[in-house]
């Protein structure tokens, strides 16, 4: 009975479960209890998204009508290959960060507020999953706001008072982004009279004759760019990542911007269509230019950061540039490379932020000066950091290498070989900023903090190594990643509204 029910409503439950679970955390109140509950919920969510991905095999798309109301009147959930991948990434990271969060949250957040953390975490997870699963434009906006509002709270929970200003900055920027998305959706509604994305796509008039559609496209593009922290709209990201609690940074860095990229993909390909975005509108040229700027400027800034979390945050902005570069190539290979990197980057950045969170737990600082010689007292943590860093650089046998391989190949095949060269050149910046940390941690004499530090608890080390191990595993056996990404990219390119 139950199995049948779950199987029937799997797609809805994926989103609804964390939504219902979030308030339960408030009722549970006790830190350990609410943690345990949230842990179970995230793991169930992960299991469901994996089940969805498996079920998608051979079907192509799964559609679910909320409350039995058929689209376009009711809200429709619709996932294809791309959404399924992003669902797995988001819920997967969510479930790996959860066990890690226990020790980290205990150290960084006032015990009286622990239940708030878990509530907001689940809400944020629900919002991110909802954005990906839904086929309704307005519903997408609602879920986006759920995830954004809860992430403002999560960031503000940081013990550092600068976390408040960082959260406020993100709030302002995020609201601008959300507003422009809702304006874009409103304009589309104006033109088509529908909120269902597939329906909008079908009803869109010949775009180049309709100025309203062009404006809607611009607003949606701007909103998505803000959410995914596309250079130069990235300014909210470094501050937010730097001052948020470690677990929050790890979770958001690996998921929130990825969902931003997903929103961009969803609107470009399935609502407006590739031919409109790249032929009628010069989106590809814009994306390529901004991506290259992100790759170089953000990487260069990262080199000069003494706060390792901030350094990794700038690195994220640069890495988002790689994903956007792939999409901007506007070929199947390019979009696939972007998706491959989306997955790979979630693994490595999650792992890196978790490793640095371990350092923060033991030394109370993430500044480079205080990390001298820390590899002697925290060998496992720093080994994880090195592996994650090698991935970021793109060394063979790590996921970063696979990403780079396909990005370069895609630019060659698109005839834009100079972008391939730019990819490799910018990845050299990563060598510089990662190696500063490695040298400090391994070859300096231990600082007072570092000498006092002990290895991080197993509950944090294990999740960190799960992600770092995945970086190596999917770097050696990338068939699954590559295959799935290419199928998703083919589906996206063929989506013909």
């Amino acid at each position, binding site marked *: 009975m139950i199995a049948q029910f779950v199987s029937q409503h799997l797609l809805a439950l994926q989103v609804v479960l964390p939504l219902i679970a979030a308030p339960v955390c408030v009722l549970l109140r006790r830190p350990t209890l609410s943690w345990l509950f949230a842990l179970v919920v995230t793991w169930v969510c992960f299991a469901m998204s994996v089940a969805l991905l498996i079920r998608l095999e051979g079907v192509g798309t799964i559609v679910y009508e909320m409350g039995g109301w058929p689209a376009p009147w009711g809200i429709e959930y619709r996932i294809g290959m791309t959404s399924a991948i992003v669902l797995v990434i988001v819920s997967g990271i969510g479930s790996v960060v959860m066990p890690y969060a226990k020790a980290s949250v205990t150290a960084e957040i006032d015990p009286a507020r622990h239940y708030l953390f878990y509530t907001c975490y689940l809400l944020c997870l629900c919002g991110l999953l909802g954005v990906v699963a839904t086929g309704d434009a307005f519903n997408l906006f609602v879920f986006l706001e759920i995830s954004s509002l809860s992430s403002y709270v999560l960031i503000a929970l940081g013990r550092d008072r600068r976390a408040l200003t960082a959260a406020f900055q993100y709030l302002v920027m995020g609201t601008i982004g959300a507003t422009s998305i809702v304006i874009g959706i409103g304009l589309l509604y104006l033109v088509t009279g529908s909120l269902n994305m597939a329906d909008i796509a079908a009803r869109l008039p010949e775009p180049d004759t309709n100025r309203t559609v062009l404006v809607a496209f611009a607003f949606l593009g701007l909103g998505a760019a803000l959410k995914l922290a596309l250079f130069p709209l990235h300014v909210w990201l470094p501050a937010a990542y730097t001052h948020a609690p470690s677990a929050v940074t790890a979770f958001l860095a690996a998921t929130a911007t990825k969902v931003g990229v997903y929103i961009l993909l969803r609107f470009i390909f399935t609502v407006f269509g590739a031919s409109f975005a790249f032929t009628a509108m010069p989106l590809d040229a814009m994306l390529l230019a901004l991506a290259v700027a992100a790759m170089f400027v953000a990487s260069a800034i990262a080199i000069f950061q003494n706060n390792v979390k901030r350094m990794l945050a700038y690195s994220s902005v640069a890495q988002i540039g790689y994903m956007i570069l792939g999409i901007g190539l506007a070929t199947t290979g390019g979009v696939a490379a972007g998706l491959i990197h989306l997955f790979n980057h979630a693994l490595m950045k999650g792992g890196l932020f978790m490793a640095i969170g371990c350092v923060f737990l033991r030394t109370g600082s993430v500044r480079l000066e205080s990390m001298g010689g820390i590899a002697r007292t925290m060998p496992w943590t720093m080994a994880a950091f090195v592996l994650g860093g090698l991935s970021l*650089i793109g*060394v*063979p*046998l790590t996921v970063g290498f696979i990403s780079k*391989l396909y990005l370069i190949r895609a630019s060659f095949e698109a005839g834009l070989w100079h972008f391939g060269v730019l990819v*490799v050149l910018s990845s050299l910046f990563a060598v510089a900023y990662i*190696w500063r940390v490695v040298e400090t941690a391994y070859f300096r004499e231990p600082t007072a903090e570092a000498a006092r530090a002990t290895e991080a608890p197993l509950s944090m080390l294990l999740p960190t190594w799960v992600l770092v191990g995945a970086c190596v595993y999917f770097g050696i056996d*990338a068939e699954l990643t590559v295959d799935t990404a290419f199928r998703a990219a083919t589906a996206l390119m063929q989506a013909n509204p």
Partner: protein
Amino acid sequence: MSGGTTIALALFLPLAGAFGMVLVGRWPNLREGVTLVTAIALFLIVSSLYGPVTEGVRPSLALLSVAPGLPLVFEVEPLGMLFGLIASFLWIVNSVYSIGYMRAKQEHNQTRFYACFAIAISSALGVAFAGNMFTLFIFYEVLTLSTYPLVTHAGTPTALKGGRTYLGILLFTSISLQLVALVGTWAVAGTTDFADGGILTGTASDLVLSALLLLYVFGIGKAALMPFHRWLPAAMVAPTPVSALLHAVAVVKAGVFTVLKVALYVFGLDLVRTLAAGEFLTYVAAATILLASLIAMRQDNLKRRLAYSTVSQLSYIVVGAMMANGVAVMGAGLHLLMHAFAKITLFFCAGAIDAAHKTKEISKMRGIGRAMPFTMAAFFVASMSIIGLPLAGGMWSKWYLALGSLESHHYVVLGALLISSLLNIAYLLPIPVRAFFASDEERGVWGTGIKEAPWLCVGALGFTALASVALFFFPGPFYRLLSLIPGLGS
């Protein structure tokens, strides 16, 4: 045991050895025992492939497919066989030497040293046996990273600075040039598998192919073609056994070996000959031969002088590969072997002098022959091999290289080879000569009796010096091995 299993074992054994060394790291004797046993076992395993390879078989092993069209595969062909034999054999000798050296110098972190060494050897074998460019590239990068802790072993600011240069240049060239070439090959040929006669012929315009060749040869930074040679002198901050095996044999030879593989099996000699880039690179390599020799003359630090000498000698192999005729490539292949034995001897001598007398500067070595007669005699023999004089193996490789340059009418290269030999005489021979023929006053500094380095060191360097001589009389097996490559030999 099938060929595939043997290959897997050869790659795996040093890693297992490294693990064992870490486990027994607390007991130095046991740890060194593990090193020696691993090294000897490895050589036996690698040499068991020699028989099949000479019979024309190419043992192979397909591990897994990393991504569609990019499998991790290994295939032992004659050139890889030669490189594998050199690396695994000299690892034994070098381990013996290391034990004497590291103990005499009372170095710290010896376990890390031996373990990283083993990993480096494993990746060098991965390079040697790689069946496609993708696999080769992976092991090439692992080799760079696993040798970094060895270069910075001392942990001093100088060592860190040297390590930064080392890693910086090697990663810059491999990521920004070689990787682009690799993906370019994959994009135009659809595969990166090595094949006799190459895989690129007719796949793209000459301009694109020329660009690829340039990206490859400059991108293989380990071949130390100018202007990407500075990592090699920088790496001399490493302990001497590292310089000896890695920066005279495994790492640098992995570089020139890759150049040869690219010329033979990715482009094919016929294609290299027709490309403008091949001609250009021939002259770049010839210039490197001369310039590096000139710079070597001005170095007073013995290891730095040897490093520049290595830069120069490596370009002999690049020049051979780029002239791309059978005779020249034969010379290049033989030089891989001859230079390995000679240069490791010279580095062993430099380390022995340092270990016994804490002397690194050539200007202070006058008259040292009285205290270290065996070391300096070995130095003399190895110098002869580098110069290319008879009674030392180095003569053969230079002979074929010169013949090759005549065959394809590269008279400039011939001139460069001749001048370089003279320069070699000028910067190498004075060292042993002044060591033996010095004034009584200079000799007096070194005391009256013999004061050699630990006997393990002297034994090792004496052995490799004798091997250099033996290679003069018996180059046959290696010549025959290389002749199995289609298009090689006369």
